[in-house]
């Protein structure tokens, strides 16, 4: 009469709450990364955003496609336009069998400053509708130094609970032991490509090592960085 743990009655399965597996890795396609790089670089130094599309599978969040948002003027009537644009894009992408599921958004940043109140508010807005969403930050100015500055961020659960409870005071923060490092959680990004694309890439790779040099990153001049830092 031993009850086996392997089989549960249907009632039991429904009754137990599903524990969401924590998000461990964001898996992007090479296409998404190239699109983000291109969009952010084309419009730098102004900051741009875009939407990420993909699938949410277990502990991996797959991002398979993305599309950029147009620059928004501060005008009321353009708000509806923005929503229309989004719907239109999603509809069109659906017709070519692209995953139609929003999993987050990306934004560009300048010299690494991205932790703003707007970011938190946008996270909150997204979290209302989507169970798991992620924000990818890209810094195009670092590309001159030869670094792919890409980061995937998520609001930490404890911070989210506290923010939602409307009881957002200094004492509460101290109670929960939340400091500024606990607000955002960084998630590692993994890149995957379909086999066809890898085949093409190996084909297109330049043959001699001479043309493959990325020595700009070894340059020692720091004058432009200095200027920017001293500007403020």
């Amino acid at each position: 009469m031993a009850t086996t743990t392997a089989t549960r009655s249907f009632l039991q399965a429904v009754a137990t709450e599903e524990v969401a597996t924590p998000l461990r890795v964001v898996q992007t396609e090479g296409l998404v990364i190239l699109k983000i790089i291109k969009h952010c670089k084309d419009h730098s130094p102004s900051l741009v955003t875009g939407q990420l599309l993909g699938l949410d599978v277990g502990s991996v969040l797959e991002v398979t496609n993305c599309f950029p948002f147009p620059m928004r003027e501060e005008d009321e009537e353009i708000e509806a336009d923005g929503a229309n644009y989004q719907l239109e894009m999603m509809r069109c992408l659906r017709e070519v069998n692209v995953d139609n599921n929003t999993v987050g958004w990306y934004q560009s940043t300048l010299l690494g400053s991205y932790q703003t109140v707007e970011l938190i508010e946008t996270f909150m807005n997204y979290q209302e509708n989507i169970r798991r969403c992620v924000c990818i930050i890209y810094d195009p100015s670092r590309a001159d130094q030869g670094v792919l500055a890409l980061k995937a961020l998520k609001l930490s659960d404890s911070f989210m609970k506290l923010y939602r409870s409307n009881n957002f005071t200094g004492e509460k923060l101290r109670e929960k032991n939340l400091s500024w490092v606990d607000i955002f959680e960084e998630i590692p990004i993994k890149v995957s490509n379909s086999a066809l694309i890898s085949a093409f890439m190996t084909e297109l790779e330049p043959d001699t090592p001479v043309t493959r040099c990325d020595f700009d990153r070894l340059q020692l001049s720091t004058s432009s960085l200095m200027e920017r830092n001293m500007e403020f």
Partner: protein
Amino acid sequence: MAASKRTVLQFSSSQTLSGKVHPLVIFNICDCYVRRPDQAERVIGTLLGSVLPDGTVDIRNSYAVPHNESVDQVALDIEYHHNMLLSHQKVNPKEVIVGWYSTGLGVTGGSALIHEFYSREVSNPIHLTVDTGFADGEGAIKAYVSNNLSLGDQQIAAQFQEIPLDLRMVEAERIGFDNLKSTSVDKIPSDLEGMEASMTHLLALVDDTYKYVDDVVEGRVDPDNKIGKCISDVVGSLPKIPSLAFDKLVNDSLQDHLLMVYLSSITRTQLGLAEKLNTAAQIL
């Protein structure tokens, strides 16, 4: 002299065009091909980009357009094409249609019709074929322009002429590209690892030049005067100071820079705090 009434087969001359393709376009095309609906054999889409002042066509973006193809006719979803074009132009108004692409090797009869449609939108569109089937054993990416063959007034055929194509990569894209070549990369290399990779490249190049010079000196390889001159120029441009002094110089300037950055960020924080305190004091 009677006016000659001979009809001559005219080839309309095409300026020597060439095209530059960004790797994003190839990625897009491959992705659309992998996602195509089951009954479609090939994917067709629009190319967006711009025409550079020296005449080369810069292909920067693309999107797929659903179509139906049968033996004798081709149907393209024009409304979808226009919708996507408008959406894309909201983001980047400088990108205009420069042509269209299709997967599969070579140009077929249906392609001529599609090409005609696109030539109504843009003058002299470029037709890009991406061979996803690897028919020749290699993925060939070719670009064509079409010339209309006309006999007197009547058009007989459209001849597709190949134009040279260049895979062009901007610096930022190249970094991303290096990371994206393999089927899966577990993590994006950090600063230090990237630096390490560049240094190893540099060392490898220096080794190669060293070997070349040795070979020339020992007579194994015929000397090439141009290369020799380049090398002597490079070596001559290095400052002639002992390595210790060079180290010290580099480190000192680095520390000066860091100090400046530190001072400026302290000032900035100080100013920010002072402002906050001031406004808080005023509110109270």
